[in-house]
């Protein structure tokens, strides 16, 4: 069965966007313009990325172009994290460090141990999965940890006043933040296959891969995302301890919470 999508097929699928816009018009939601802009923007972005990827991951091109692409993704992801949680101090540098650490761990395992062959065609999508899926957990961990330290400042200072080092005084709040950030991913992992078919697997099956092969790839992707979220969140939390406490174990003044 040929499952490739033609340009005509893409044009027909725009009917689905029209359905969404039509519902907005019918229910007077006033979102028609936003829906159309979002769909157009997504399409243009995807076409541009597709064109760029075609160039970057071409087998005739050096793998360094793919690494450069990955580096760009890490940097961009850090700026997105910073934008999403401006109230978390130093999030740009911390998110960059955490995504880089997660890349080293996950790509190191997957390519170092030859789970996938190291080519542009594997490197770029895997790194994209890793960054994209750990973004929410990263922002959540940073935000939750900062909120905890701000809201429980009295408690934290009571611990410091008992002679606890900043790392020790922060431990309960680090745990709470990491649990909050990791639990959704753990729940998603548990529900995979039962409640929903994840994107990578669905895409592979649509593209004609056998279900078993699609499942194996999806399982690896799930494990990749688990490791990436655990790594990014712990790096964020430990990095924040260094930034939110002074070397002489004082808690710095924390900015007021943003509306979120």
């Amino acid at each position, binding site marked *: 069965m040929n499952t490739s999508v033609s340009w005509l097929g893409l044009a027909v699928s725009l009917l689905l966007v029209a359905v969404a816009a039509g519902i907005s018009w019918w229910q007077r939601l006033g979102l028609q313009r936003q829906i159309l802009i979002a769909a157009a923007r997504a399409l243009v972005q995807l076409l541009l990325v597709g064109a760029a990827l075609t160039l970057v991951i071409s087998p005739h091109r050096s793998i360094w172009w793919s690494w450069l692409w990955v580096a760009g993704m890490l940097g961009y992801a850090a700026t997105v994290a910073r934008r999403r949680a401006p109230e978390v101090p130093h999030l740009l540098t911390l998110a960059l460090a955490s995504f880089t650490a997660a890349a080293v761990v996950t790509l190191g395992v997957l390519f170092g141990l030859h789970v996938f062959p190291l080519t542009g065609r594997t490197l770029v999508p895997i790194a994209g999965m890793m960054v994209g899926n750990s973004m929410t957990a990263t922002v959540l961990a940073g935000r939750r940890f900062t909120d905890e330290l701000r809201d429980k400042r009295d408690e934290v200072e009571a611990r410091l*006043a008992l*002679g*606890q080092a900043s790392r020790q005084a922060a431990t309960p709040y680090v745990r709470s933040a990491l649990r909050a950030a990791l639990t959704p991913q753990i729940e998603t992992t548990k529900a995979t296959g039962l409640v929903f078919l994840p994107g990578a697997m669905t895409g592979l099956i649509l593209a004609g891969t056998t279900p078993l092969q699609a499942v194996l790839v999806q399982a690896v992707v799930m494990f990749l995302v688990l490791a990436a979220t655990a790594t990014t969140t712990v790096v964020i939390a430990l990095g924040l301890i260094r930034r939110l406490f002074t070397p002489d174990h004082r808690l710095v003044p924390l900015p007021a919470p943003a509306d979120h």
Partner: protein
Amino acid sequence: MSEPTAFEFERVTVRRAGRRVLDQVVAAIPAAGITVVSGPSGAGKTTLLRLCNRLEVPDEGKVCYRGQQLDELDPLMLRRRVGMVFQRPTPFPGSVADNLAVAHPDASTKELKAALKRVALDPGLLGQDARTLSGGELQRMCLARTLVTQPETLLLDEPTSALDALPKQVFETTARDLAAHGITLIWVTHDDAQARRVADQIYQLRDGHLTGAPTEEARP
């Protein structure tokens, strides 16, 4: 011979949001008895206390503890020598024993019970969830938790401001008892009557200035 001092403040200034919370404060807090720092809300009393265990640092000037400049001391060791009880009780999750163990994880049950007795709390409360204690009990548990670190000096930041008359009286009696056993107490309060009841010497702090030398005013 001059009386030994616990803390010396040498032209200490603390600024916050462009305002001088403490302004060129000069003081010598004696090592003996209870020193009360009184003054209205917002006068800078809490800031003065927080400088003593380096939860804050001055923008100008220096603070010395028993002759040593605070920034030359290990802050973690300093905080075990100079304990602090905050205005609002801050119980940690878990039982009373869990709370005391935060201060001294290796303490035996016997030591924990002794700490409770020292603040006139029933040692039988050890297993109770700390958050179920009454306000007065909670504040004394926080005092016991601080005492577990065996401090030489105690900083008390309006510890009875939320307590009724009876628990307030119990807390004051406990504090006097600790002072009688050689612990230096620095007690911040805006309650003048309480200041007169508990103080061996009183400082007045107003608008960031420590006014006058310590008075000789003492308990009747």
